[in-house]
């Protein structure tokens, strides 16, 4: 079955063609950095560990950077330069914060002709690039867009006819089967309307009782992509407008659970419904996006623990989009769903890899939160996402003051201990013990540290959660790759070759565009143009 579902020859050729053109015209594809090699790796790590284990890591950096450590003879409980670390910290977060970065779509770097929009700021393209880009705009809006609209209209008509026919099927079992087929068909029509090229890896889902599928979430289109391969039931927020209409349609055909996020009290109802649905073997497997909101497909935010505490077998699905061909991130705050679909339909393509991963079970002694983190880590590694521990809730609401309070408590304990003269140089284990009372989940590793500030003690719970091994090795791989680039002559040859091909391609594209316009332009229009110019 796996072999058959990856067949979409035309689209594969199309995407392949696009990538060959970009490879010649531009630099090799920019790969999103992994967590370990991210320029802000240390900051991300500190925030992650702070959100998860309390303010140890942050307190550690504060103590290291405050003047107290470097000048032990100054015995004041507070130094005027103690606040420098807070200032630089605050400025850093004003300049750039990791939460906002999860929800903004950055244009691909380096800029290339596949990009949908002109990058903000000044016009920085060379004439050659502009030409290529303008031809691309022409092709996307004048050729692909009408074609895609046609695909969607024909496809939906077919779907409606087919769906109507299913009412004539007498046997319940076949009827269900036929309906599932038509729903999958509908999903693939929608995927085809953005030239979606999806590659599936891993074992195709099969229905059993007590299983739940979890995936990372970039846009509502995730649903179409996954439903194209297999019929899932979904749980999600109720939308308005076109997206809401689609949800109603789906609801009529299958069992889904939609809820309103602003109505806080229906969480219990939702959990109940979810549990019931998951236990029922006859319903479609449940698909959950535990992030709770759309993130751009480079970061992965905290997984909500709800779906992991059901006791069901969790099947992770990692989805990774290739940004180069079109950005699938849907920012529901700024873009409406029809607009998002329009943007996708006027992009080059949506290219996505879907990995079905080994089912995971909650281990004895593991809490729902830990289990959620473990699954998230698996997905991040598979899809190459940067993991941050922010709650999706923070996209719309302020962070709870308890995080600030825990920092203040940690600071207060440092200052009181300094006043008593207990802290001649750095944090002693007694401070750690005080901190552990506030954060019971870290009791094990931090208490094991014994005397003094053992960095290992801070790192241990953390390095367990975010092993860097893989990231380092991929870094090394890349460094090796760079060295293999070869000597100057071959570089020059390659460069000339590339330039020649660029110009040939540009001229060819221009001629092709002119010919196509000439061929398809209505005669009357041609006449008017001719009379105007002669």
């Amino acid at each position: 079955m796996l072999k058959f579902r990856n067949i979409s020859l035309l689209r594969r050729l199309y995407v392949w063609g696009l990538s060959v053109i970009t490879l010649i015209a531009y630099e090799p594809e920019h790969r999103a950095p992994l967590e370990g090699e991210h320029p802000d790796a240390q900051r991300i790590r500190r925030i992650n560990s702070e959100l998860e284990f309390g303010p140890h890591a942050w307190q550690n950096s504060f103590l290291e950077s405050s003047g107290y450590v470097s000048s032990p003879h100054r015995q004041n409980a507070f130094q005027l330069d103690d606040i420098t670390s807070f200032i630089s910290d605050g400025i850093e977060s004003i300049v750039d914060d990791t939460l906002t970065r999860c929800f903004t779509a950055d244009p691909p770097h380096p800029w290339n002709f596949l990009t949908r929009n002109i990058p903000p700021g000044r016009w920085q393209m060379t004439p050659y690039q502009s030409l290529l880009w303008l031809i691309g705009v022409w092709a996307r809006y004048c050729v692909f867009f009408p074609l895609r609209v046609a695909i969607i209209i024909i496809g939906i008509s077919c779907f409606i006819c087919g769906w109507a026919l299913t009412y004539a099927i007498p046997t319940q079992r076949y009827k269900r089967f036929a309906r599932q087929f038509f729903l999958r068909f509908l999903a693939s029509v929608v995927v085809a309307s953005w030239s979606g090229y999806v590659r599936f890896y891993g074992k195709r889902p099969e229905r059993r009782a007590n299983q739940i599928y979890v995936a990372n979430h970039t846009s509502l289109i995730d649903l179409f992509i996954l439903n194209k391969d297999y019929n899932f039931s979904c749980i999600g927020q109720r939308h308005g407008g076109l997206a809401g209409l689609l949800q109603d349609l789906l609801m009529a055909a299958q069992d889904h659970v939609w809820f309103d996020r602003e109505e806080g009290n229906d969480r219990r109802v939702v959990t109940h419904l979810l549990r019931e649905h998951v236990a029922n073997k006859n319903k479609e497997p449940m698909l959950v996006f535990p992030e709770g909101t759309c993130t751009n497909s480079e970061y992965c935010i905290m997984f909500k623990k709800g779906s992991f505490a059901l006791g069901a077998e969790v099947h992770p699905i990692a989805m990774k989009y290739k940004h180069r061909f079109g950005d699938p991130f849907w920012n529901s705050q700024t873009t409406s769903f029809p607009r998002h679909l329009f943007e996708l339909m006027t992009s080059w393509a949506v290219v996505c890899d879907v990995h079905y991963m080994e089912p995971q079970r909650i281990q004895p002694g593991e809490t729902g939160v830990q289990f959620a983190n473990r699954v998230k880590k698996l997905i991040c590694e598979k899809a190459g996402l940067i993991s941050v521990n922010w709650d999706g809730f923070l996209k719309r609401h302020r962070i709870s003051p308890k995080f600030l309070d825990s920092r203040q408590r940690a600071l207060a304990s440092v200052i009181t201990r300094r006043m008593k003269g207990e802290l001649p140089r750095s944090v002693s284990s007694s401070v750690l013990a005080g901190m552990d009372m506030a954060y019971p989940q870290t009791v094990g590793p931090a208490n094991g540290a014994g005397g003094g500030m053992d960095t290992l003690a801070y790192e241990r719970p953390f390095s367990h959660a975010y092993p860097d091994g893989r990231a380092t090795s991929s870094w090394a791989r890349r460094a090796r790759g760079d060295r293999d680039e070869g000597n100057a002559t071959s570089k020059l040859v390659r460069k000339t070759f590339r330039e020649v091909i660029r110009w040939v391609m540009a001229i060819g594209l221009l001629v092709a565009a002119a010919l196509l316009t000439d061929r398809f332009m209505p005669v009357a229009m041609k006449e008017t143009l001719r009379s105007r110019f002669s």
Partner: protein
Amino acid sequence: MGANTSALLSEEIEEISRQTNLQQSEVKRLYKRFQQLDRKQSGTLDTRNLLMVPELAMNPLHPRLVSMFENVNFQQFVTNIGAFSSGAQPSTKIDFTFRLYDVDEDGFISSDDLEKILRMLVGDHIDQRTLTDVAVKVIADADTDGDGRISRDEFTTALDVPEVARKLTVTF
């Protein structure tokens, strides 16, 4: 085509980058960030939107930092941030710190100012008497002319300027 509608003019970028000793690319990046923070596109920053940045809301000094970035337009925003670039004078960095300490904005750090800062740092986990003791001691150490408050010059003397400047450098 969804192109950026409110792009900064290149002359403005040049102007600002000349005034603040920042690279033009840095100014552009800051402008993008400013637009992000200014969710309503009003042209100035407000407290509510600043505190939506969780990393800032978790900072014990956020009331002071926010008050320095509240109601600023892009020009002032860049000037404030520019003090933290690696090319900026150490004195501007010290100046920012001094203004941060000087809660009542009278040009001196009094023990009241310092107490307020300490209160922000420790929340309600230390009682008032202890805090006052700490504040008075710090003031007494730095106060060379004996007027019970720290002036701008005394502040500079009390600090290890190159070290503080190094710590107050942020890459962006």
